[in-house]
């Protein structure tokens, strides 16, 4: 086993993010099972559904590259959805909601970052606790019932198309490109890479480790707020359950995309395909008649499988 893993071909293959393989396998499965579903219109709809997940993945991959994790996305999405749909701000315009959402995400992200970077609390605990607090508060405020409607403009924007590509998908691709540029071209991107590779070495080389971690979390909060806006546009109503499973899916997609705590081999496009894998996976599972419990199992198996894939690789010299 070790000898096979050490060969140059195997090591080259292990360098490619698993999401590309999984994507091809799922595409082939779908092509065999339902060839007529593989047209641009139908795929466009399926891909549009996972845009909130795809956006959340962008934040997740930034924090995972600094060896942290953000599971508070579910709470942020729920809170922003509540703000928009509850009617607490009567007559508010769309720009107001956008600014409110971004500010909310930024504040929560900064709080996460402060607790993790400054207080050095376990990131899983902080972000899970923040999520629980937000979910509990929203459910209390709405007394367990879904709040009201969302301003029509949100859903209208969500349904537009540009050159027969749904606008949300286009927006997602643009945002992914922006994050890709941020990580590859800016000083912040370099800091993120060096903190993830070795925080101690980065510290002694003059990299502001703590500030980088805090900023990464603030960015993740901001991106979660954007995901919340898109998610709210897609369901067009208030909900007390929306987006609760997204953070864990985002972690799965990011790991699948080759970004594992501190190691960023998959770049930004690996996780992008990781999110696409989930779009296809849900289609394939629906086609094969597998329902919600099966999806939970698939999520777990994918995270564990991808993590083992990397764990084994790190062991080989």
């Amino acid at each position, binding site marked *: 086993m070790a000898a096979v893993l050490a060969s140059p071909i195997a090591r080259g293959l292990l360098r490619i993010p698993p999401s590309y393989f999984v994507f091809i396998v799922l595409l082939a499965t779908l092509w065999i099972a339902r060839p007529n579903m593989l047209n641009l219109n139908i795929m466009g709809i399926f891909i549009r559904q996972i845009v909130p997940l795809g956006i959340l993945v962008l934040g997740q991959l930034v924090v995972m590259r600094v060896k942290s994790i953000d599971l508070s996305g579910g709470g942020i999405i729920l809170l922003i959805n509540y703000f928009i749909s509850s009617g607490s701000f009567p007559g508010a315009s769309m720009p107001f909601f956008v600014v409110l959402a971004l500010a909310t995400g930024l504040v929560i992200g900064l709080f996460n970052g402060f*607790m993790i970077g400054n207080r050095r609390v376990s990131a899983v*605990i902080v972000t899970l606790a923040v999520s629980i607090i937000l979910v509990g508060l929203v*459910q209390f405020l709405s007394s367990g019932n879904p709040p009201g409607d969302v301003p029509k403009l949100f859903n209208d924007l969500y349904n537009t198309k540009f050159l027969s590509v749904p606008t949300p998908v286009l927006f997602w691709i643009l945002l992914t490109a922006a994050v890709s540029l941020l990580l590859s071209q800016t000083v912040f991107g370099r800091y993120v890479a060096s903190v993830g590779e070795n925080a101690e070495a980065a510290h002694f080389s003059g990299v502001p480790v703590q500030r980088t971690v805090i900023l990464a979390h603030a960015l993740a909060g901001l991106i979660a707020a954007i995901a919340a806006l898109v998610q709210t546009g897609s369901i067009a109503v208030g909900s007390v359950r929306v987006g609760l499973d997204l953070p864990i899916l985002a972690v799965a997609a990011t790991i699948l995309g080759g970004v594992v705590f501190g190691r960023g081999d998959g770049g930004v496009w690996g996780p992008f395909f990781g999110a696409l894998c989930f779009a296809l996976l849900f289609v394939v599972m629906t086609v094969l008649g597998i329902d919600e419990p099966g999806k939970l199992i698939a999520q777990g198996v994918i995270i564990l499988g991808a993590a083992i894939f990397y764990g084994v690789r790190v062991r080989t010299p």
Partner: protein
Amino acid sequence: MYHSLFNILSGRNTRQGLWGLPLLVALLISLWLTVETTQFATAENLFNLVAQAMPLIIAALGQLIVVLIGGLDLSVGSVISFTTAVLALDQPAIVLIPAVFLLAAFIGLINGLAITSFNVHPIIATLSTQYIVLGITRILRPVSGGSVPEIVIAAVSGSFLGIPYPVFWGIVVILVGWKLLYGSRYGLHLFAIGGGIASGAESAARNFGVSDRRNIILAYVVCSCFAAVAGVFLAGRIVSGDPNVGLLFELDTVTAVALGGTQLSGGIGSLHGTVIGALVMALLANGMNLANVSPFVQTAIKGGILLAVVGLQSRKKMGL
């Protein structure tokens, strides 16, 4: 005398962690509840409190063992739900009860192997098994229902000499935990491995001839088995299988463990602290129920406590 009392209260210079303070908090909450409400200080309510706290105490002791070696088991809640679902499968108790523990041990084994042999971060490994086990539980029992064997129900609902059975469950579990942590070579090894991991010298215990791999795998197996005991207890209480009964339980156990002065980075902690931590959680829940606090707010408050107790701990490592 003064010096040692101060040490106990502050948790300084001890391997036990800070557990005197939570005890004080528990006593203060009890005192407050006794003064504020007439229902609290009745034998009935107190026995009820023990029964309510018992699943958390049992599961938190399992979590403690994993936390001592610097790990974390997020699959505890799913294992509890899974146990109740398996117990409600309409099979004879003689088959179900051993099966429940074998399955739990198997889940723990997968966690342990993924962490040690495949180099997966404990949180990621147990997060995955949390979802896998939850999925299997939902397949076995999509909504709550079914009936658990009579013997399980009888084991939690009777009483002996006027003392309800849950009290005996507590005594037995604490004795077993005590033997494991303080009366066996294994317990000493746990503290040794955890102390090494917490101070950044991960091979420290190995260099002294303590097999970290085997002991870490065993810790996850023991944790899952404790969760299964909690599941059996809960199944007896709710007399059916419920796929959601263990929801967020893993975080409650982490809160109880951290509240009891155990350091999440490993190596420092105590059994009595964890029991006290779980009791504080139960007292708070009891108090909030008596004060008619909305269950949603209760969840939010629990999250806030988790954030506060873990936020007050200091550790060297940043991130996960």
